[in-house]
Structure formats: structure tokens, C-alpha cells
């Protein structure tokens, strides 16, 4: 069994076309996809420093001085063009995707900040351009941080003045000695517990799931799943070649046994899929940043990721045996690969995440293994979830594997 697997790996690694298709083509697709779609995730920009990003501000605290001060501060920012709208208008435009983001200032914002209570701004994005979203967030956070500091230093000086008023014998010479530690304490407080916080959110139109949408986080796992399942052809083509050249007869005439032989034919597919994932994810982590793109983040649960990769590899490998069983000619294998694998990949959300398209497509996509693979990767890599969140994906992928293997083995013709 291992002899068959090792021999097939040797043959595979001598096949340059197969290697390019399995390892380099996905990288090219990912880079082109990120470049064309503008989903690069920013990574620091495109050198267009004069470009001003539009930010709609909804001011629910029109009389508040702090709110006004915040808007003026944002307006002075070199890269932000501020426009004010009423909340209903802004929300409608956001849902209609006429605007990409809005900053909501709550009604009692100025009063809360003046009273030393934390005021929460709400930054709502419906853009997939994570780089710009982060730039806006940083700009807003920068302005609010200055405001927090200013507000708290003013508060510390007011405390000092109160102390002087409360104590007539207070020596003015000691005020400076007192002022410095008080100011330092307020500065620390402003850093640890800022008076103004910014909460990010997404509108309902971006889907039920709250996903941190990033081109790299979407593109790398999506295309990885697409190309992983394309390697299901490896098993089918390898078996077809063995039958065509007559080596299959030799294998059947050996004491190897039919089932060990078949499992031996499956192992290389499994190994290649695992290597593909490692290679593509490594490229996402190390190569994409060199090209000015975001680095891929692997999420918070590496053991769960390993488990998911193994489940996907098993599913893809057993799909290969099914294709080998139903496709009798090279043309049929190519046809099945082109039709089933690409169509399934599209339906399953490997090209475009299903939470970004309509609900019926998303429902249809659930009948594909690609959907569960992609969803599992998004849960781990993009949503930062753990094993519990992907148990359904793993379960469904193992179910697909069992179905593919049973039907493939049942329909497989050894003679």
C-alpha cells in the first residue's frame, strides 16, 4: 500500500504541470483576485496620499461642544472628508451602499465625556476594503485619543484648582509639585480607560454573521478550497493512466490486494492536499506581505485548523475515487473536473463568500463540500472562532467523505 503511494508521489513530483497546477496556480489566482477586486486588505496603501476617504458623521448630540470638537478634529484630518447626515438618511444610504461607512455620535456624548463617563462612538462599515476601514478607524481613534487626553488633563487641572480653593493656607509654590503627578495619573487613565471609545459594526446587509472581512482572509482560504478540490482529479487521472498503460493489470496480478491498492492510490492525493494547504497558507503569511498585501492570520485555534485541513483532505481524496469510478475516459475526467469541481466551488462560496451574496445561493451552496470547507476556514481564520464552531463543518465533511468513498468503491471497476 505504501509502496503504491510512494511510487505515485514520485510520479506526481516529476510532473511539472501537476505541480504548477496544484501549488503555483492558486498563488497566482489569489494575487490576481486580490488585485482585481481591491480586497487586498490595504497593507499600508497604494501611495495615493492625496486621496481623501469619505466619512459620513451622524451627530445625535448637535448641541454638545465635545461632539462638535470631534467633528472639527476629523475635518482637519488630511485623509478624511467629513459629511454630516441625519441618522435615518445615513442608514438608508449605507444599506443602499451609496456610502461605505458612517460614524454615529450618541445623544449624550458631550455630557458623558464632560462628566468623566465613557462615551462610545459607533463606526459602521459596509465596505470589504479592510485597509481603508482600518485607516478610518485609526484616524477616528487618533482624534478621540487626543480629545480624551485633553479632557482629562483639563479635569486634573480643575481638581488642582479645587484643592487650592478648599485650602486657604495652600502654598502656591507646591502647586507645581502636585500638578505633575496628578497630570501623569490622568494621562495613564486616559490611556488605559479612554473617555471615548470606537465600536465597529456592520450593517445587516453584510450578512447575519459578523465577519471581519478582509481580502486575504477571504481569498486565501477560498482559493485554497477551490484548488484543493481540483486535486481530486489526481486520483482519478492516476487510476485512469494505470488502466490505460496496463500497469493496473500488473498491480492486480500482484499479491497486494485490491483494497490496499486502492487506498495506496488515495494516499498521495491526501498528502498533496495537506501540502497544498501548508504551502498556500505559508504563502499567505510570508509572501503576500512582501507584495504589499496583508498577512494571512491563522486564527486562534491551530489544532482545530489542523483537524479541519485533514477533514477537507479526506473529503477531497474520496471525491477523487468517486470521479475515478464514474468517469471512464480522460475526457470524462476532465469534464467532471471542469463541471463539477468549478461549479461546486462557485456554489460553495470558494470564489465569493456566500454571506456576501443572496440567501438562496447560500442555501444551495450548503449541498457542496466546498461550502463546509470554506465556512470552517472562515470560522477559524476570519471570525477567530475555535473547534466548537467548526464541528458542524468537520462532521459534514466526514459525512461527504463516507458517501463519496462508499459510492466510489461500489461503482469502481477493477476489471
Amino acid at each position: 500500500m505504501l509502496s503504491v503511494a510512494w511510487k505515485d508521489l514520485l510520479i506526481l513530483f516529476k510532473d511539472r504541470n501537476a505541480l504548477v497546477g496544484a501549488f503555483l496556480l492558486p498563488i497566482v489566482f489569489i494575487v490576481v483576485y486580490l488585485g482585481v477586486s481591491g480586497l487586498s486588505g490595504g497593507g499600508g496603501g497604494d501611495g495615493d496620499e492625496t486621496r481623501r476617504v469619505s466619512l459620513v458623521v451622524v451627530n445625535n448630540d448637535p448641541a454638545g461642544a465635545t461632539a462638535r470638537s470631534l467633528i472639527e478634529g476629523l475635518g482637519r484630518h488630511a485623509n478624511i472628508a467629513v459629511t454630516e447626515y441625519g441618522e435615518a438618511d445615513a442608514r438608508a444610504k449605507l444599506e443602499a451602499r451609496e456610502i461605505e461607512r458612517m460614524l454615529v455620535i450618541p445623544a449624550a456624548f458631550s455630557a458623558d465625556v464632560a462628566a468623566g463617563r465613557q462615551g462610545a462612538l459607533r463606526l459602521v462599515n459596509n465596505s470589504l476594503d479592510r485597509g481603508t476601514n482600518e485607516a478610518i478607524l485609526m484616524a477616528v481613534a487618533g482624534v478621540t485619543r487626543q480629545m480624551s487626553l485633553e479632557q482629562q488633563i483639563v479635569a486634573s487641572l480643575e481638581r488642582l484648582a479645587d484643592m487650592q480653593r478648599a485650602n486657604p493656607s495652600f502654598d502656591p509654590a507646591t502647586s507645581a509639585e502636585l500638578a505633575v503627578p496628578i497630570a501623569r495619573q490622568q494621562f495613564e487613565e486616559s490611556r488605559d480607560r479612554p473617555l471615548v471609545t470606537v465600536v465597529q459594526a456592520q450593517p445587516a446587509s453584510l450578512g447575519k454573521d459578523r465577519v471581519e472581512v478582509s481580502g486575504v482572509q477571504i481569498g486565501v482560504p477560498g482559493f485554497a478550497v477551490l484548488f484543493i478540490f481540483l486535486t481530486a482529479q489526481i486520483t482519478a487521472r492516476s487510476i485512469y493512466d494505470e488502466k490505460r498503460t496496463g500497469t493496473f493489470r500488473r498491480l492486480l496480478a500482484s499479491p497486494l490486494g485490491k483494497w490496499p491498492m486502492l487506498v495506496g492510490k488515495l494516499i498521495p492525493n491526501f498528502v498533496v492536499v495537506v501540502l497544498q494547504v501548508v504551502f498556500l497558507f505559508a504563502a499567505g503569511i510570508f509572501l503576500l506581505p512582501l507584495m504589499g498585501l496583508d498577512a494571512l492570520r491563522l486564527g486562534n485555534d491551530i489544532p482545530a485548523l489542523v483537524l479541519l485541513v485533514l477533514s477537507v483532505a479526506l473529503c477531497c481524496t474520496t471525491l477523487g475515487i468517486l470521479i475515478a469510478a464514474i468517469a471512464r475516459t480522460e475526457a470524462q475526467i476532465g469534464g467532471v473536473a471542469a463541471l463539477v469541481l468549478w461549479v461546486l466551488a462557485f456554489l460553495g462560496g470558494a470564489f465569493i463568500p456566500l454571506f456576501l451574496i443572496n440567501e438562496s445561493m447560500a442555501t444551495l451552496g450548503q449541498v457542496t463540500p466546498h461550502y463546509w470547507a470554506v465556512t470552517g476556514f472562515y470560522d477559524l481564520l476570519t471570525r477567530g472562532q475555535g473547534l466548537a464552531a467548526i464541528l458542524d463543518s468537520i462532521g459534514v465533511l466526514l459525512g461527504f467523505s463516507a458517501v463519496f468513498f462508499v459510492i466510489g468503491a461500489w461503482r469502481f471497476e477493477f476489471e
Partner: protein
Amino acid sequence: MPPILEADNLVKTYGEHVAVGGISFEVEEGEVFGLLGPNGAGKTTTISMLTGVLEPTSGTARIGGHDLLEEPAEVKRANGLVPQDLALYPTLSARANLQFFGRIYGLRGKELKDRVEDVLEVVALTDRADEAIEKYSGGMKRRINIAAGLVHQPRLLFLDEPTVGVDPQSRNHIFESVLRLNRERRMSIVYTSHYMEEVELLCNRVAIVDQGRIIALDTIANLIAMLGGGVIELGLERVDDDMLAAMRALPSVNGANVVAPPAPATAGGEEPAMRAGPAAPEPALIKIESKRSQDALVQVIGYLNERDIAFTSVKIFEPNLESVFLHLTGKKLRE
């Protein structure tokens, strides 16, 4: 000594089609046994059943003392198969191919290494062993194809049409290899071919196979002796039963039968003598068996002249397996 192979009424059917319709024969230890028959006769299907590639519809066999159906692994270890196709991995070197085929028979380590070197020597390709098979000539590929069936030292080697598409030099090399394996290593061999010259050269005994059945099985000498003098094939512009009866009555003629209408001349011109002559209104090809072919031919031509019947072709088959096959089936081996 018990036979190395005892095939017992092997049958293989595909739906209504009977590929092998009950074949039984024995191969003695150290024997080169031939399966001779035209393409599609059932030779490869028979070999496929005996090597465990195909499951017989019915019947069984014992090879090396093991039952084909009950002890398939032992039977497969005793067998070596050299398929008709070039059953090799073209991108791998000859050595890598042989190592793989040794491993699947359980060879490992030094034993595997020694066996690979040995078979490379047998097929005289040691110096090219590390080149990819795809760079080999057709004849070299055939030789490695044989080596791959030998690497685990089988007791019984099945060679299925091993010289198809091979140049004369490589064919001779294959013949020498087969004879050396048999004589020097006492390897038993089942050799299938539709070339009677190869079977005559290599085999001790021959089973003639046609339409999935063995129609004759004996030593080559005995099979040829069936015919006596030989066979005359005569193309006539017309023939009837009275004429056939009259020819059978001629002193040197043992038998006269209609074979088939003469076929139109083929593009390949395989048998131009048989196709010569103008087309007749109701042509017929008759086969005349005789112990003294020349006398029989003189008598038959005299008879035809008396009756004013023209003949369109004449061919005398010397006594050989081709004429035996013609005698038994009314067909030529390579039709």
C-alpha cells in the same frame, strides 16, 4: 512432479458474450507452453484469469500447488505477468520501476537490490537503468517490461504477446531471454502469441485457441503430424458438392472442403498470392489436405482442366502450425 499449472474448465462471460468458454490444460514444471490463436481468441482473458487479474465466471486453476480462488495471494506470488501493453511508469527510471514492482511482491532491502540488478542483467539494460523509461526505444521498453515480471523470481511466467510492435533485433533478444530463463533457471513459461513462428521456436507444447476454446493441444511435432503432407488452398471461380466429392476421391487427396470466398485484396497485401486473379461470379476457396501435396496438386489441377474450371489462386501450405490452424478452423491465424 506435479504440474506447475492445472487450469480446470475456466469460463469467462460478459453478459451474453462468452470470452472463454471452458479451457482446461496443464503446464509441466520447466516447460514452455504456448497459447496460439488469433486476436480475440481468448488468450489474454485466459491469462488474466490465471494471474488473478480477472475473476473466472466458473472453473478454477491450481498454480504451484495453490488454488486460484482459495489462495489467491500464494498463486500471485508464484506467478509473473508480462502484459501485452508496456505496463511501466514512463517518467520513472527502469531501476525505480523494477524496485516498485519488487516491493509490491514484498521484496525489501538487499534482496530487492540484488533482484533488480539481476533482472537488469537478464535484459541487458544495466548501463541504462537510471534513465527514465520514456527515453527508451520501443525494444528496450519491451525488455524492461519483461524484467518487471521477473523481479520477484516467479515459478511460472506468463508472457502475453511480448513481441508485438518490436523490431527484429529486440525480438531476437526477447527470444534469447525466454530460452535462457527456461534453460538456466528452469522457469516455467506460458507464452501467448498469434505468431506461429515464435511458438514453434520457443514452446514444447502448444494449445491452439479459437473463439474461447482450446481446439488442439499437443507437442508441435504431433500437431503438425495431424496434417501429414500439408494443405493446398485453391481459389475457384465456382464450386459445388459434386466437385468436392470428386476431388476427395482423387488418390492423393485426404480431404477437400470449402473454406470461404476469396477476400478482396487487402491494403497491406498480406497474402497477395491468395488474392490474385480476376473476380469470379460465385468464387470459392477450397482447402485440400494431403499427405503428398505435390501429387495432390497435379491430380486436382488435372481434374479441373477436364471439367474446364478455372482457378484463381493456388497456395501450398507447408506443414506447420499455421496450416494446422487452417485445418482446424478454416481460418488463418492472422485473419
